[in-house]
């Protein structure tokens, strides 16, 4: 490895190489776009990879219908700016059954509105490769995952039988119905992501910046009341607090942190002195240490 390029340049080059390899070898790739900061970086890298052409694949967002409203606005704007087709998929059966995080619990809700929805969308469009913005530093089972992660026709991941992945030579072969999840940001850390956003001036959803927002506190987690669908418990009333989000997902499942950071520099600074890892704001990871591995085996990203 050459030592002449900065750490970020090296990560950027590796990611671009991965993205191009997928475009060159797969029949029908798609980029999963979750609207978070990692997705923002991934989209930016895809645009760089194919400049001056737009990336030769669509963006896809699995909409659980419980995302923050600001995320949806941001999503539509970014897709238009990149000149890319945007596919939005919702599990319509789940929506008809009114599957929601309050009545059905985060685990079942995630299964139906995220994992099942994702599988439906991938099957419907017959995508043979899907980019995801996951990083290996996020979680233990992710640290074990390949950059090109093979999935069976049922979208299952077999962690004990992964294809060996040597050098930068990626095995992209799949049979009908099978697919590959590709993680171009595998080797980035949370700090790298923020540094890169800063260095490249990449737009991110304003929810990452501190603002006065209506919130309630439940079991020590600060939840934003983003719309009127959120049932309030007895004696609960939303109060305005200066908060921001370190990670974004479905608003009822995403904990805010109290913070006054409203520039990228302040966010990075806050992150550097933080003593809690970012996923702790996500409720679905708490159930069990192996819960992510289990979800991934079933097809979750």
């Amino acid at each position, binding site marked *: *490895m*050459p*030592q*002449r*390029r*900065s*750490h970020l*340049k*090296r990560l*950027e*080059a590796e990611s*671009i*190489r991965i993205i*191009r*390899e997928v*475009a*060159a070898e797969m029949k029908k790739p798609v980029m999963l776009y979750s609207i978070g900061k990692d997705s923002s970086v991934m989209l930016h890298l895809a645009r*760089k*990879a*194919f*400049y*001056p*052409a737009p990336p030769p694949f669509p963006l896809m967002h699995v909409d659980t219908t419980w995302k923050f409203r600001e995320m949806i606005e941001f999503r539509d704007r970014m897709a238009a700016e990149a000149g890319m087709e945007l596919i939005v998929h919702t599990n319509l059966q789940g929506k008809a059954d009114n599957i929601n995080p309050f009545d059905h619990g985060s685990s079942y809700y995630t299964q139906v509105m995220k994992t099942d929805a994702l599988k439906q969308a991938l099957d419907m469009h017959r995508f043979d490769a899907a980019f995801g913005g996951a990083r*290996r*530093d996020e979680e*233990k*089972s992710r*640290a*074990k995952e390949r950059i090109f992660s093979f999935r069976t026709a049922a979208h299952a991941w077999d*962690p*004990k039988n*992964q*294809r*060996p*992945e*040597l*050098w*930068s*030579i990626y*095995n992209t*072969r799949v*049979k009908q119905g099978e697919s590959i999840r590709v993680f171009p940001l595998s*080797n980035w850390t949370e*700090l790298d992501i923020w*540094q890169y956003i*800063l260095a490249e001036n990449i737009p991110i959803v304003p929810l990452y910046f501190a603002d006065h927002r209506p919130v309630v506190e439940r079991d020590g987690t600060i939840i934003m009341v983003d719309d009127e669908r959120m049932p309030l418990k007895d004696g609960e009333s939303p109060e305005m607090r200066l908060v921001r989000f370190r990670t974004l997902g479905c608003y009822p499942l995403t904990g805010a942190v109290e913070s006054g950071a409203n520039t990228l*520099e*302040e966010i*990075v*600074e806050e992150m*550097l*002195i*933080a003593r*809690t*890892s970012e996923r*702790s704001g996500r409720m679905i990871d708490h159930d069990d*240490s*192996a819960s992510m*591995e*289990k979800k991934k085996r079933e097809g979750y990203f």
Partner: protein
Amino acid sequence: MNELTEISANITDYLAEQENKGFLRFITCGSVDDGKSTLIGRLLFDTKLIFEDQLAALARDSKKHGTLGDDIDFALLVDGLEAEREQGITIDVAYRFFATDKRKFIVADTPGHEQYTRNMATGASTADLAVILIDARKGVLTQTRRHSFIVSLLGIRHVVVAVNKMDLVDYSEERFREIEAAYRAFGETFDFETLEIVPVSALKGDNIIERSPAMPWYQGMSLLDHLNTVEIGSDEAERPFRMPVQWVNRPNLDFRGYCGTVVSGTVRPGDKVVIAKSGRATEISRIASMDGDLEEAVSGDSITLLLKDEVDISRGDVICASDSRAEVADQFSAHLIWMNDEALYPGRPYLLKTGTQTVTATVTELKHKIDVNSFEHLAAKEMHLNEVAFCNLSLSSPIAFDPYETNREMGSFILIDRFTNQTVGAGVIWYALRRASNIHLQALDVDKTAHADLKGQKPAVLWFTGLSGAGKSTIANLVEKKLHARGRHTYLLDGDNVRHGLNRDLGFTEADRVENIRRVGEVSKLFVDAGLITLVSFISPFRAERQMARNLVEDDEFIEIYVSTPLAVAEERDPKGLYRKARDGQLKNFTGIDSPYEEPENAQLVLDTVGSDADVLADQVVRYLEDNGYIGR
């Protein structure tokens, strides 16, 4: 180390500092209980990369799976898979990230068990340094030798041997010196650029971050100090320019960009370049990027090149410095690591991927296997999981490459099984075989078309495959009779008959079966060349070999005919009494009994022998030949 709490007032300065940090990718390897994962956990913990909530989860898990009572078991931090936590071992490579005030690190924690050698090789392929652990109580083991060998094979030039668990041998200098001498005795043969041997206790933190007062006799650097300062020679930017073309970018008629990652050297507009395989020369006109045109790109950069002339270039081509082209060859010698449960047999075709090129490849000769524990060279007819061998490979078309020693990216490849799509092997190229270029095919004036025209037919191979007793020979025989009666020129190669002559030196092991089919494939090719309709009646149980035979002739010259009969029916017919013998154990490796039959996936014809008369089925074959223009009506 305390950078996180001492962030300078000016965050911009801090970030600039981060940008300029060095970078090192390393692996840790060692035997089962040498404490690799504990070492990494210790590094993450002591460099403050473990967050409070992770620590809380760790404390919970330590009680559940840990081996240290109420103490925190750091290994559980990196052994991320449920099966690993339950069994207390590392199965697959895990990537972890940490940083000091000098460098950023990516560490691959790789498994020690021999059955996971392939996973260790995966981690080693992208590392610049290896930390090899040795348990101070056990000393140098065969595993230590295996790990050192794999590390060396994959081109890692820097090694740190961490003699761990020094706390369990009372921090004995004598014990350490003994192990140090034992390692150096064989480690020398690998000619590593740097080799440091450090006594540590990962569990207690001795000599990990700082020199430990428990071992005042040790004068060297702590492990982390060494990782922080070791010079990783990187002259890739100084080497000849190479860029494998990954993607051709054509957004409009005025822009034709060649995208790829520079794998060595430096490139600037105006540089003269040459395309490795075609030898066409041109000049770089621009290096385009979203941030504006670049003045220079170096090894590691992913770029888009525009050329001065319109040259025919596509994915798989390699753009090279014009004064130093990559080699081009279709036969070479390489070290191969086999990574699949199913063995490798010489002659069987696989897909070979190197850089952006993918071709069909076969191992033509296994020169020798290498015992990874003793480094002895052994004769070999086949390769099994986790074995390493030196071999010759032959490709369906030439590739551009450089020897692995001089260029890791240009000299490495993987082998992919064409049917399962598994990555089954990984190799490093040593040198091209010159003999390929010295045997030129003799061009013959009376060629295949001339032969066929005289006979008034289109030659082809009718490949009958199926279980023993399925009815292959019966049907093939009838087909030949019918064709003969119509004045067609044919020849029937029957499995049993060929084994009495051409292939009488072959047995029924998988390796021999592969060779058996290879020879028959070559003979059929000659007969097709002679203009004959060639009928082949062979069990040929493996898809890979049938594919190999198919590859020898043109696409439309190979007609695969699956004679489909359920095993029970074939066994009941048992015309030669072979099934009975196989069931009695007198006949080994009998297809359908103790050796598999892989059904064809894309046969041109499937003949279902249950409920159909052989004569009717033979007519079906003749009709196929008529319908597709092989013979006249």
